[in-house]
C-alpha cells in the first residue's frame, strides 16, 4: 500500500514553498482579468474538479480504499441544492450548506455498510452505486426533470454589490471556495484525526489492535469526502444553472480518480495539480474531435507506465535522484 501512496514530505525550504504558493495564487487571481471567457470558464470547471479531487484524496489517498462514486456525490449535491432553491424557495446561501450536510449524511449512510467490503469488492460496488444514482436522477422525471434537464437555476444571491450572475464573479466565488476548502482539508490532514487515517491506511489490523475504531474513521473520511463533493456540486449547480444527468454519469467519477492518480494520491496537492493537468490535456485536444478521447486514454496509460505514483511520485523520484 505504501508504495502506491506517498507521504507529503516537505524537504524544501518553507520560504520557497511560500513563494511558489504566492505566485500561483496571484496568477490564479489574474486569470479572469487576462484571459478570455472561455479560459475562465474552463478554469472554473478545473477548480471545481480540483476541489473534488482534493476531497477524494481524504478517503482514497489518506485512508486507503479506492472508490468510484465521487461524481455521484457531486451530482446529489448539485440536484439537492438546485431543488431546494427551485422547489422550496430557499436562497442559495442556505441551500449550499444544507446540501453539503445532506450529502455528508448520505455518505455516512452508504459508507457504513459498504466499507465492510474488502478491496476491489468495495471499489466496484461504489462504481455501481454511482451508476445507480445516475439512473435515479435520470428516471425521477417528476422531481429532477430527468433527461429533460433541470433549468432555471438562479445564481447565488449577491451581496455588498457583488452580482454572481457573471462569469468573473463566479470565478472568484469558486476560487475563494476552493482555497478555503483546500486549506481546511490540509488542516484536517495535519490534525490528530488525519494522522490516524494514515495509520489506518498503513496497517489497518495494527490500528485495530491498538484500539482504534477503524471503521468509524473510515466512514468519517468517506463522509467528509462526500460532503465536500456535495458542497462543490451545489456550487456547480448555481454556476452552470442547467443540470443534466449526463454531467454526473460514471465518467465524472472516473475523471476524479484519474486526476488523483495522475497527480499522486495521498499528497493532497497532487490531485489538485492532477485536475489541472487533465483539464489542460483535454482542452489542448479539443481541436481533434474524434481523436481526443483516444489520445487521452493512450496518454493516461503512458503516464501510468512512466510513474504509477503520479506526478508527485515523479517529483519525489527526481528529487531523490539528485540527493
Amino acid at each position, binding site marked *: 500500500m505504501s508504495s502506491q501512496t506517498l507521504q507529503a514530505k516537505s524537504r524544501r525550504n518553507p520560504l520557497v514553498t511560500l513563494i511558489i504558493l504566492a505566485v500561483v495564487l496571484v496568477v490564479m487571481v489574474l486569470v479572469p482579468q487576462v484571459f*478570455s*471567457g*472561455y479560459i475562465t*470558464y*474552463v478554469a472554473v*470547471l478545473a477548480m471545481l474538479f480540483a476541489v473534488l479531487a482534493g476531497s477524494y484524496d481524504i478517503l482514497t489517498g489518506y485512508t486507503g480504499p479506492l472508490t468510484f462514486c465521487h461524481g455521484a456525490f457531486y451530482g446529489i449535491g448539485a440536484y439537492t441544492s438546485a431543488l431546494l432553491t427551485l422547489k422550496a424557495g430557499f436562497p442559495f446561501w442556505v441551500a449550499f450548506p444544507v446540501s453539503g450536510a445532506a450529502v455528508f449524511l448520505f455518505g455516512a449512510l452508504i459508507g457504513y455498510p459498504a466499507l465492510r467490503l474488502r478491496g476491489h469488492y468495495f471499489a466496484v460496488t461504489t462504481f455501481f452505486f454511482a451508476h445507480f444514482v445516475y*439512473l435515479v436522477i*435520470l*428516471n425521477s*422525471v417528476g422531481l429532477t426533470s*430527468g*433527461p*429533460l*434537464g433541470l*433549468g432555471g437555476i438562479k445564481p447565488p444571491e449577491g451581496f455588498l454589490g457583488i452580482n454572481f450572475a457573471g462569469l468573473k464573479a463566479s470565478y472568484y466565488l469558486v476560487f475563494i471556495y476552493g482555497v478555503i476548502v483546500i486549506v481546511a482539508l490540509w488542516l484536517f490532514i495535519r490534525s490528530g484525526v488525519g494522522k490516524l487515517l494514515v495509520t489506518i491506511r498503513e496497517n489497518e489490523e495494527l490500528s485495530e489492535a491498538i484500539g482504534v475504531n477503524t471503521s468509524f474513521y473510515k466512514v468519517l473520511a468517506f463522509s467528509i469526502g462526500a460532503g465536500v463533493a456535495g458542497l462543490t456540486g451545489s456550487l456547480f449547480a448555481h454556476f*452552470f444553472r*442547467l443540470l*443534466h444527468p*449526463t*454531467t454526473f454519469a460514471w465518467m465524472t467519477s472516473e475523471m476524479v480518480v484519474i486526476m488523483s492518480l495522475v497527480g499522486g494520491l495521498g499528497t493532497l496537492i497532487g490531485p489538485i495539480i492532477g485536475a489541472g493537468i487533465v483539464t489542460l*490535456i483535454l*482542452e*489542448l*485536444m*479539443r*481541436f481533434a*474531435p*474524434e481523436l*481526443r*478521447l483516444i*489520445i487521452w486514454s493512450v*496518454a493516461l496509460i*503512458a*503516464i501510468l*507506465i*512512466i*510513474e504509477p505514483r503520479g506526478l508527485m511520485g515523479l517529483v519525489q523520484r527526481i528529487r531523490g535522484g539528485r540527493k
Partner: protein
Amino acid sequence: MSKTRKLLVLLVVLLLAATLVLTSCKGGKAGNVIKIGYTAPFTGSAAEFGTNGWRGVQLALEEINAAGVKVGNKTYNVEIVRYDSKCEPTEAVANMRKLALEDKVVGVLGDHCSSCCRGIAPLATEYKIPSITIECAADNVTSPGQEYYFRMRPSMGLMAPLAAPKILDLTGAKRVGYLGVNDDYGRSFNKSFQDQFGPAGAKTVAEIYFERGNTDFMAFLNQLKAAKPDIVLYVGTASEGAMILKQAQEIGITPGIKFVGSEEMGEMELVSLAGSEAVDGTYAVALWGAVASDFEKKVKDKFNAPMHYAIIFGYDALKVMVDAIQRAQSLDTVKIKDALLATDYAGLEGQIKFETFEGFRNQGRYTPSFIQWKDGTREAM
C-alpha cells in the same frame, strides 16, 4: 529510469508539444476566411448524430467554397471549426465559449442534443453569435427562446399536432403503446403525442422507456404484447428501432400491431439494419419526404452512407447561415442575425423561415412527412 520509460516520457512531451504547436498555428491563417463553428457529439452515446450532421455540413461546405462567398467586394472561403460536445452540456458550453471568444467565429451550427442546445442558447445571445441548432427537438430550446438562437426543424410540441391526427386517421387506433429511449428526445416526443392522442380518444395502455445502448428489448415487447395496443409509438434511433422490429417479429407482435416511429424510423438505413421483412408495414413521422435523388447519390458517393435527416439538416444549416451572410453583406454578427431573421430559403427540407409565434422564437415552420414502409422503400402517405 529505464529505457522504455524515458522513451515514453519523450513521447508524451512530444505529443503535448505537437498539440500546442498545432493549436497555436491554427489562428495564424488569416485573410479571406469566414469561420463558422460547429459543436456536435462526435464521441459518446450520441456520436452517430454528429457523424451524420458533419457529413451534411461537409457537402454544403464543398459547394459553398467552390463558388466562394462574396461579401462586399471580397470573395471569402468558409472554414468550419469543429468541436466535440459528447452530448454533455458542460462540454457544449466550453465549445461555444471557445468558438465565440478564441476562434472568433461569425456563426455557430449545433448542437444535436437538446440539453446542450439549452446550455449554449443563452451564450449565443451573450456573445451575439447567430446560431442554428441542427436537430435539437425539445420545445424549450426555442420556447421562450433566445434572440440569437435559431431552429429550422419543428420541435416535438409543434410536430405532434400536425402528425397525430394523421396517425389516427390512417390507423384508427384506440389504444396506444409508447416505447421510447429514456432521454430528453424520447420523453418529450411521447409526451407531445400523448397530449394529442388523449383528447382524441386514443388511450395510453403502456408507456415504456429504455436506456440508450440497450440491446435486448424482449421484456418490453412482451409487456407491450400483453397490453394489446392498436399501435405502438416508438421514439429512438434507427439502430435501436431496427433491433426492436427484429425482436418484435421474433415473438410475433408485428405485423399485428402497427409500429409508428419517430423521424429516425423513416430513414433508409432502417431497412439495411433490420431487413425489409421486419420493417414493412410500419409507419414513420419522417423529416424528409422525397429529397432530390442527386443529393442522395452525392451522400452515397462521398460517404458510402444512406440518407439521413441529420445530413439534410447539417447541409441546410450551413447553407442558410451562408445565405444570411451574403444577404447581410457583412461579417458583423448583429447584421447576420438580422439577415437570418429574414430568411426565406428553399432548402432540401422545404422552404425555411424563422418566425416567432405561440411562445416560440426564431422557429422554423415545417410540416413533417408521413411515410409507410413497403417492400423496403419509403412511401409517402
